[in-house]
């Protein structure tokens, strides 16, 4: 039987919107479930005690569910990674977009994007068997054995005694599994995200901008620093934010190399237990519907809120600046 084209159109529209709506509904339901399961722990153990408690002993009797060490772990690892990954990622993007020869660019861009699809469990394993032993067996003896000896042999007051003692005690790396190792591995994870988005942002800057800059007598560096980067600052911020979002949610690496001690890290060689690692390590063995189970959902909800805020921020920035750019073009 023949259908009128209007009917066909309507049917197609219905199917497409149903499919689209289904995924949105599923997402909303997952979010609802997450918060429903998380609510109970805040209700039962007290919001303040959970959010600002210093002790995470979920299976001790009586248990304590202080999430502050976990949040601090995530923040420490993220901060350390951001310090390394943002400059490197942005510099890579500038090099590929502006400086590299056409042929080098063709080769480098897919290579870095391929790095993004590198399985994080492999990175974690690499950190565990290569980087961690290097820190504890090579760097630590240099810093806490050789260095104090050199300092002692100088026979100078203060340096040969106090400073040597300080190096011996404070520069000792107790374990290679710490936030530095985690940050190094997370950097590998974050750089491709940051650089590929930043590179797109830089390339999207209209050629007329560069030409105008050159015609005013600016050289390449001045053009990059004063014209291209300011013009693409919204895209660059989004790159940074999404990079940070990737780091915060990354589970396998921190589970394997961050050390897993639920304490607030004070130095860059201290271990930490970031939120995703806590969830991944404990969820399998937390009895269903127990307080511990709800506490892990609480951690998950917190994590979700952080990444949600980050993506909201990136959305806001992209909307705000895009309108400005279009306005400029007209």
């Amino acid at each position: 039987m023949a259908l009128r084209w209007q009917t066909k159109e309507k049917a197609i529209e219905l199917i497409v919107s149903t499919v689209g709506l289904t995924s949105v509904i599923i997402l909303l339901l997952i979010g609802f479930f997450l918060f429903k399961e998380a609510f109970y722990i805040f209700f039962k153990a007290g919001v303040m005690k959970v959010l600002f408690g210093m002790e995470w002993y979920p299976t001790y009797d009586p248990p304590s569910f202080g999430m502050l060490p976990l949040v601090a772990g995530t923040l420490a690892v993220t901060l350390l990674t951001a310090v390394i990954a943002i400059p490197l990622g942005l510099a890579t993007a500038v090099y590929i977009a502006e400086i590299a020869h056409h042929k080098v660019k063709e080769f480098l861009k897919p290579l870095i994007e391929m790095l993004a699809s590198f399985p994080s469990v492999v990175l974690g394993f690499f950190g565990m068997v290569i980087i961690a032993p290097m820190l504890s067996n090579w760097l630590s003896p240099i810093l806490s054995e050789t260095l104090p000896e050199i300092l002692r042999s100088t026979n100078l007051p203060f340096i040969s005694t106090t400073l040597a003692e300080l190096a011996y005690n404070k520069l000792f790396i107790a374990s290679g599994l710490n936030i530095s190792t985690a940050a190094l591995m997370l950097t590998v994870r974050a750089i491709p995200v940051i650089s590929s988005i930043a590179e797109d942002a830089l390339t999207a800057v209209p050629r007329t901008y560069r030409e105008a800059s050159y015609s005013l007598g600016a050289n390449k560096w001045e053009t990059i620093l004063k014209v291209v980067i300011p013009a693409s600052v919204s895209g660059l911020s989004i790159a940074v934010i999404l990079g940070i979002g990737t780091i915060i949610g990354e589970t396998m690496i921190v589970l394997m190399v961050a050390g897993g001690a639920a304490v607030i890290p004070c130095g860059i060689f201290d271990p930490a237990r970031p939120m995703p690692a806590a969830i991944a390590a404990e969820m399998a063995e937390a009895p269903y519907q127990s307080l511990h189970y709800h506490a892990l959902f609480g951690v998950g909800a917190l994590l979700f809120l952080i990444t949600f805020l980050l993506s909201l921020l990136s959305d806001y920035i992209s909307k705000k600046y895009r309108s400005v750019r279009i306005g400029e073009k007209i």
Partner: protein
Amino acid sequence: MKKFLMIIFTGLIVFSLTGLSFGEDLRIDGSTTVLPIAQKAAEVYMKKHADTRIFVSGSGSGTGIKALIDGTTHIATSSREAKDKEVASGKAKGITLTGHKVALDGIIPVVHISMKINDITMEQLRDVYNGKIKSWKELGGPNRPISVVSRDTSSGTYEVWEEKVLKGDKVRADALLVASNGQAVQTIAQNKFAIGYIGIGYIDKSVKILKVNGKSASPASVRDGSWPVARPLFMYTNGKPTGVIGKFIHFMMSAEGQKVVNEVKYVSIQ
């Protein structure tokens, strides 16, 4: 023709949903520590008895025993003996909890190979893990802080350690928590100043095993009870098991079942 196809398809869908159940079903639930034993044993058993289907899950010792009392499982695995309260609540529902010791779990302390310490006491272990002893110097080693490696607090291995070594103390907060026995071995093998503990089946040449109170760990010393950090693992049934439940428990106790226990790195009872 269309109708015929329709009937066939409907039939196929219905059958695939219900499953063609001819044989007997056996449900096992309980301790996550015993889970590897139950899983492997179920696999081997089902290979021999194709008509039996065994469903294994691990939701914790307490939950397993509760499920047995509620009648939602046939066998409850447990890493501890049933509490008096559980036995009483079973009685109230007409369930007689009957324990079968199917395996033993022994935990041993290990250090880096280069560490010049061979022996440690239970008191020292406790102090190392609760944070009272912070330096190897206090144990007769170098003047370096001890890197304490522990297992995730929800693991069964940690449970034994907490009960037998820590005796109610909290493990120090800055202990490195690792997710598995393998990872514990890996971490300790690469850290000169680390101490940790692993299940006896995971003994590896890359780490050094410590004597505790002058006793060395072996399957024999776990079996005769002289090794201080060990516990029996149970399977609980309602009364004397009969039918397929009885056959499975019998299989667990047989040489073949005990071979499974050793394969998944626990200590067999004989």
